[in-house]
Each structure stands twice: as C-alpha cells, then as structure tokens.
C-alpha cells in the first residue's frame, strides 16, 4: 500500500522513517510546498521517494492509499479535507487542529467519508506501559480509583521565542495544546469523559501563548490535577508522570517505568510493590528514538497501516481527537472558572 507524507518538518521525517519500516507500507510520495525541503529529505534516503509540491500533483503520479498529515496544526484542516476528498485514508498528527472550529469541521468532513480510516497521532495510546495502565484500570487492579495527580514538563521556553508554535493564531496555544495534549488524551482514555474543568494558564516568557497551566479535571467518579509547563528546568525531554490512587492500590507511571503497589493480587500481579521498566512493555519492532516517543511513533503508524489494510477504524480515531480538542478549548476558556462539559460533546 502506498502512503504519502505531507509536511516535511521533523515530525514528517520521523513518520517517513517509520513508514519505510512498517510491514505492508510503501513510502510513495513526499509532499511539501518547499522544494528545498523535499530535496533535503530525499537526500536522507538511500532510494529517495518521489517529491511533489502539492497533494494533487502527487495523486496525478502515484496511486495512494493514505496520507500522513505532518504539517503545522493550522494547516491540518485544509490538507486533511483535501485528502479525504481524494478518497485517501488520513492520519493527522496531534493535535487534530489548532482550534475547535477546525477540529469540528474535520469531523464533519470525515462523516461524509465514512469508509475512510481517520487516525490522529496521540502516540502515548500506543506505548506499552500506558496500555498496561489502561489494562490495570479496566481490571480494577487498584480497586475504586479515587484521585490522580499528573504532570507534564519540558525545558523549552526561557525567553520570548519566535515561530508558529508561539503564535496563538497558528498554534492555538502553548504548552497545553502542543505537548500536554498527549497526557490529556491518555486521561480521557483511562477515565472517560470529563465532567468539568477548572484551569489557570500563565504566560511567563511568551507573549501570546501559555507557558504553564494548572488544571483540575473532574471525571464521573474521580478528580485530579494536571500541572504542566515548558519553562521548567531539568527536562530536556518532555516528561509526563501520572500517579493514580485507588482503594486497594497505587500506580505511578512515567517515561521510564511503571510502579505498582497492590494490597492484594490483581490483574496478574502479586500483592506488593512492582517496579517495571518501560522496556518491559515496549512492543515496537523498530524504534528510532526510545527517549523521544519512538515506540509510539512506530506503533501508531503500524496501526494506521493495518487499519487501512483491514478496513477497520484505527485505534485512535478523530472522534478522540475532537474530545481532546474540546477539553483543551475548555481549559483555555476557564481562566479559573469551573466549566462543565456534557458527555455528548465528548463522544
């Protein structure tokens, strides 16, 4: 099956490398508006994939099954809609869009093409140790889950910066929409729809976007806090930590390990403390960067390719992308006020 990579920045290069190694997939087209970027990415390849400056041009020359949309998020809607109209299956990098309006429009477009596979790149959903947390929660290994504490930190912004990421009209926001969205997606997957949000976002260095946020999330039967910042020293790599407390156990997961403390045997674990390295759950056959989410990149691409072949929904569909977008929108609107979200708006 032939696939195209649209948008040849860092993430586009990462997906190009993955697609070349996922069984059953063929990297058949590179697409970007900048020809020099195309030549640069082609020069990374032993046998370069053909380069095109538009999707239409690529479609004229190569029969494509699907496309990976790796452009900045402000361009996701236009590019993804064009792909859907061309009958392609579409993988969109996270977040689904830079604003709720575009994300909702994408879902509407997707409803016009129900046969299309539509995936969004929340890669933590494909990381083995996060999957294990989901399995443990589903098996009620911790008993009744009562509370969680989560954080996502990165050392990236310590002075005003330039570029589309720091321009709210193009990125949609700062740390929350660009990085914390992965963690928010995992929380939605584990705990279900959010009932209410109370959040405070702060700009320390950036003029237009938030550098940090303190978020309180209320789910059906539990609540918890998320602290996040990209202006925190000591985090060269984006680092997420989640602690979940239940009536019969506690769980802590970060980017290196899963720590489980059980009062009684559950879900295949004996009672006691278990500290398991992340590597114990890594199922990626190829990993370009274990420290930078390489497992998730490979497995999300593998899932998308499999879904295209088997004509089934991908594991992380655009519906989930829209749910995250609605949550992010509420976080930005909150400004310290409690905002209630209906379940229908997240399903």
């Amino acid at each position: 099956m032939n696939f195209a990579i649209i948008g040849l920045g860092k993430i586009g290069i990462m997906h190009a490398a993955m697609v070349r190694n996922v069984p059953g997939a063929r990297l058949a087209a590179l697409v970007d508006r900048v020809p020099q970027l195309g030549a640069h990415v082609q020069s990374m390849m032993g046998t370069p994939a053909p380069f095109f400056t538009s999707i239409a041009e690529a479609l004229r020359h190569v029969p494509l099954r699907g496309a990976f949309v790796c452009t900045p998020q402000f361009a996701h809607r236009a590019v993804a809609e064009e792909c859907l109209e061309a009958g392609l299956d579409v993988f969109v990098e996270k977040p689904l869009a830079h604003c709720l309006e575009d994300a909702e429009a994408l879902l509407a477009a997707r409803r016009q093409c129900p046969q299309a596979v539509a995936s969004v790149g929340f890669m933590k959903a494909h990381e083995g140790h996060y999957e294990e947390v989901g399995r443990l929660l589903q098996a009620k290994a911790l008993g009744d889950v009562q509370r969680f504490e989560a954080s996502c930190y990165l050392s990236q912004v310590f002075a005003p910066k330039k570029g589309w990421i720091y321009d709210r009209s193009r990125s949609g926001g700062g740390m929350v929409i660009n990085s914390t969205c992965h963690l928010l997606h995992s929380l939605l997957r584990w705990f279900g729809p959010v009932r209410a949000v109370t959040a405070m976002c702060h700009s320390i260095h950036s003029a237009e976007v938030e550098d940090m946020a303190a978020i309180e999330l209320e789910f059906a039967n539990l609540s918890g806090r998320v602290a996040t910042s990209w202006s925190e020293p000591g985090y060269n790599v984006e680092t997420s930590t989640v602690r979940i407390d239940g009536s019969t156990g506690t769980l802590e997961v970060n980017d290196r390990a899963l720590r489980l403390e059980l009062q009684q045997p559950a879900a295949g674990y004996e009672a006691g403390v278990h500290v398991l390295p992340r590597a114990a759950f890594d199922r990626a056959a190829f990993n370009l960067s274990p420290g930078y989410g390489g497992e998730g990149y490979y497995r999300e691409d593998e899932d998308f390719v499999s879904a295209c072949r088997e004509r089934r929904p991908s594991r992380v569909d655009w519906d989930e992308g829209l749910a995250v977008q609605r949550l992010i929108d509420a976080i930005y609107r909150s400004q310290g006020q409690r905002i209630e979200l209906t379940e229908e708006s997240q399903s």
Partner: protein
Amino acid sequence: MIGDFPRCVLGTTRIDSTNQASLGSFLDAAGQGTLLTDGGSLVWEALRIGDRLRRWQVWAMVPNVAGYVREATDFGMFGAGWRRLRRMNPLSCGRLFLQGLLNVRGVLRRDFPTLLRLLLELEMANFRRARPPVVFLHPQITDLLLAMDHGQALQQTLTQIRKGFGAEPGLATNNLGTLLPRLYAWGIDVPCVLTSLHPQSYGMRPSRQACEDCLRHFEGRIVATLETPLNASVAAYWRSQEVSSSVYDVAEPNLTQWHDWQTGSCPKEAQQSRGKSAEQEVLTMGAG
C-alpha cells in the same frame, strides 16, 4: 584498531547539572578508566579539572542529536550550526570553514550526508584534545540512516571516523536485529556496535531471537547498554553473547557499583559459546 576494550565504560547520558559534582568526585575516587560522552558541556567541565583528562580515556558518541535538535527547534538548522560554530576554537573553525568551502554545493542544497559530515566535524572539534580512540555514531543517526536505507551515508560516516578522526568507528543502535543484516547486505564492516542486550529482551528489536541470530555471525565487538540494574542473569547473558564491554550509565555513579560492573558484567574469564541461553531473570512482575 585499539587493543582490548575496557570491561566497563562510564556512561554520561544521565548526568545533569544536579549531579555534576558527584561525577567529579567519582572520577577522582575511581582513579582512571574510560568514559563515553556525547560532548555535553557538563562532562567537559568535570574532565577539565585537575588531571582527570589524563587519567580518563574518552570515547565519543556523536553527533549530540538531542542538543542539536533542541537548538534547531529554537534557532533553525543553520542557526543551531552557527551557535555551535561560535563555541569552537579558531583552528577548528578554520578546518570546518575549509570543509564547508569544499562542500558548498551540498550545504546549499541541504544535502543530508554533507550536513552530517560537517556536523561530525563540528562535534569532533570538541574532542580534539581528548583524542578518543573509539567514536560511535549516535543511535538516532545510525537508526535514521538504517530506516531510510542509506548504506552509502553510513559507510561514508564510518570512513570519516576512521580516516578523518583516526578512531575506531562504531555504530550505536536501538535496532540491532535490523541493522546487522542490512550491514551485511550493504557489505559494510563495523568494528563495534553499541546496543541493548537483556535476557528479558528489553531493547532488543525486532526480537531477542533475531538479535541473537545476527550476533552469531557478527565478527566485531559488542558494547552492551542496560536500562535496568545489573544482576547475575544479565551478566550471564552478556557472557553468553560475548559482550566485550558494557556501559555503566546512571545519574550518580558510585564506586561499589562501578566495581561490580567491572567484575560482573564483562566476560573475559568465562567465555561461553554464543546462543547458549542464560539463566532466566526472576522478575517481580506477573504480566507484561
């Protein structure tokens, strides 16, 4: 080609500003040895004190991808290169300038093999005084070229390390079982490979079996890395796989562990045939 590898090499990927002082104390207490670094400033600052650089042999892992990507995110690819250029001494700057002139077309076209060659020159300028006898290509670059099926660029890099820097070239990888067959297919000989080896298959991609099958035919030296603590079963497994050296890489190195790694992790006294299964590690886990 250098002689025997040290049994254990001190890794520095987990050293940050909070434990820089403990690195210095460790270097003094351990006396001498070999240290593997990507050339981060914290490690150089520790090595410059006293006669540490004379007592510690330095192996290089280049390019420092994480640092470069961070700077490229902030300042663009050329901006990141310019910032690194400004940190170089005039002699290295001149050498790099000459290389740039000779490759000006490739630079202007942003040809990746050309940029990689210049980036390695840029990074290795930091290492000139330490004269590393072994230089590994960073796993993110090895594996990127592997993923992109670019054997020619890999070969060019190995030649640059051997001839340009006078060091034994190595490839660090997180995809051993994919890399070695591809190297055979490309006809590329690599003297040493740095990779994860673990009896529970941690970090062994695409599978432990595939990696072991490849290692049976590999004639170079294996330097093993580990994400988990060293224990008897890992040591036995490394012996079974004829590991030459291992990387002890923790945030705060201590002498007791260092000695354990030197006596337990490397296999000269107990060579076993390849492929023999090691004793199974007892894990505390019930699943996964």
